[in-house]
């Protein structure tokens, strides 16, 4: 264990027990937030990162695809064959998006929380951060339904859900929520559902600046408060997300 790291964590910080000689970058994923120490390096290897970051630039045009990966590999001075080192193929590129955009929230939050009309209170901050994260999908939103279909594949669903959980955790953390009580889980679960249904909504939203998505998000978050807590909303959200999600997937040819 990484015992040397002093932790005063609101939640447990999982670390792996691998030898630290090599591949540190691979294994030190943190599952949940630690309030004290800086985030460990990401889950991608050096050359992997090189490929993914270059390929990411091709996503708006080519989607989260092998083609984007191979174009990226060539941009980075590597070979056509190089992306075959990536264990999950095109899904790696999706994970890269989820991962980098989640991490980018921290830097953005300091901007959002400064200035005249900075949100006050945990609720308003959660709303602002969730919106910010949704807007980080802007460039790729037209490719996102395909990505959701890939994420829903049985072999990728666990990793996708985990990323979603970590995003919720990040948002609550950045919003300054330090409560460690039974509502911890419901808060995260509820936000996960609200986020993913808003994201789905956004893939079909053609309004300028996604105003409809913005309204959708605010309604959902508002309902959670008015229904009297997160719990009441969960049933509703499961229903909505599941049916909307399934429809999208069906439209992509998933056999469900």
């Amino acid at each position, binding site marked *: 264990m990484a015992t040397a790291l002093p932790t005063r964590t609101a939640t447990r910080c999982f670390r792996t027990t691998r030898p630290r000689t*090599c591949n540190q970058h691979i294994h030190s994923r943190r599952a949940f937030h630690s309030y004290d120490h800086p985030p460990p390096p990401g889950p991608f290897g050096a050359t992997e990162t090189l490929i993914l970051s270059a390929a990411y630039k091709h996503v708006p045009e080519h989607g989260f695809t092998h083609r984007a990966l191979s174009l990226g*590999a060539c941009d980075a001075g*590597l070979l056509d064959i*190089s992306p075959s080192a990536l*264990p999950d193929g095109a899904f790696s590129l999706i994970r890269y998006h989820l991962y980098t955009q989640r991490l980018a929230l921290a830097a953005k939050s300091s901007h959002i929380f400064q200035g005249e009309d900075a949100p006050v209170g945990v609720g308003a901050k959660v709303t602002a951060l969730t919106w910010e994260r949704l807007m980080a999908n802007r460039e790729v939103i037209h490719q996102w339904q395909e990505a959701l279909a890939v994420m829903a594949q049985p072999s990728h669903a666990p990793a996708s859900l985990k990323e979603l959980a970590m995003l919720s955790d990040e948002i609550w953390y950045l919003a300054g929520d330090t409560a460690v009580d039974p509502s911890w889980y419901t808060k995260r679960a509820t936000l996960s559902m609200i986020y993913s249904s808003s994201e789905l909504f956004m893939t079909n939203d053609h309004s300028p600046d996604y105003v409809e998505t913005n309204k959708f998000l605010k309604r959902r978050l508002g309902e959670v408060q008015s229904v009297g807590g997160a719990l009441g909303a969960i049933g509703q959200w499961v229903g909505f997300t599941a049916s909307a999600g399934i429809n999208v997937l069906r439209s992509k040819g998933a056999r469900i």
Partner: protein
Amino acid sequence: MNARSGLRLGARALRASTPRAPVARPFSTTIPQYDQGKHTHFGYETIPEAEKQGRVAGVFTNVAESYDKMNDLMSLGVHRLWKDYFVSTLNPGATTPLGQPQKILDVAGGTGDIAFRMLHNAHVLNGNPNIELTISDINPAMLEVGRQRSLALPAEQQSCISFLEANAETLPSSIQDNSLDLYTVAFGIRNFTNMRAALKEAHRVLKPGGIFACLEFSKVDRFPLFNAVYKQWSFSAIPLIGQLVAGDRDSYQYLVESIERFPTQVEFRDMIVEAGFDVAGEGYENLTGGIAAIHRGIKPLR
């Protein structure tokens, strides 16, 4: 490894004539100097050169079939699927733009199993015939099997293949530094005396960005129950079946033991990294609960 002591025949046909003739022992490495001229396979018979070649080829085919049988036993019958999957994830021949050249070396690839799949993938699936594929093996008898089998391929695929007798631990200088896109080794590396040397060589010959890909029997330790059952199966049943099916208990015993000695997925991944490769994600992928695993490394830029 002392495979040399007690060499047995892998093929019944041979055994019938001269039971002690040192032919290729399936799954073993150390038959370095296989000299066709010295063979006494056909006993005191004097047969025309041409006919002998034919018979020799027949024998090799039997050896290769014996390999297949072993693979079937060890893999619970699914090694062909693993090989298909192994090749499809590498997707040789897929280039942007289409039809760019690729240079591939299949090490310990005597029987051509992996090589032929890669050619199919490149030619047929990706419409890219611009592939240079070298099949190398330390054992010329195995290479001969590959050569024979390759005759069944379409001519344009045959013309992409060359054969090379070489020890993976010291590849000849004809395979130049930084010259390959892809290096594959399937069910071979376990047999190498010095795996680290072979990994270094792989690193030497690959271009920056080139891929080292290895398919090998591995460890199912993650699932204790499955592990127990599989070990029981492999240590007691397989040598016995080997005895019954191929009349060759020792080879099968060797096979099972060599798998047991092979490093775990993580240890082997770390060896790949030590040799200078980068890995993505965990660096390996388990197949069928870890009975086999695919390891991939990428040679970094610089």
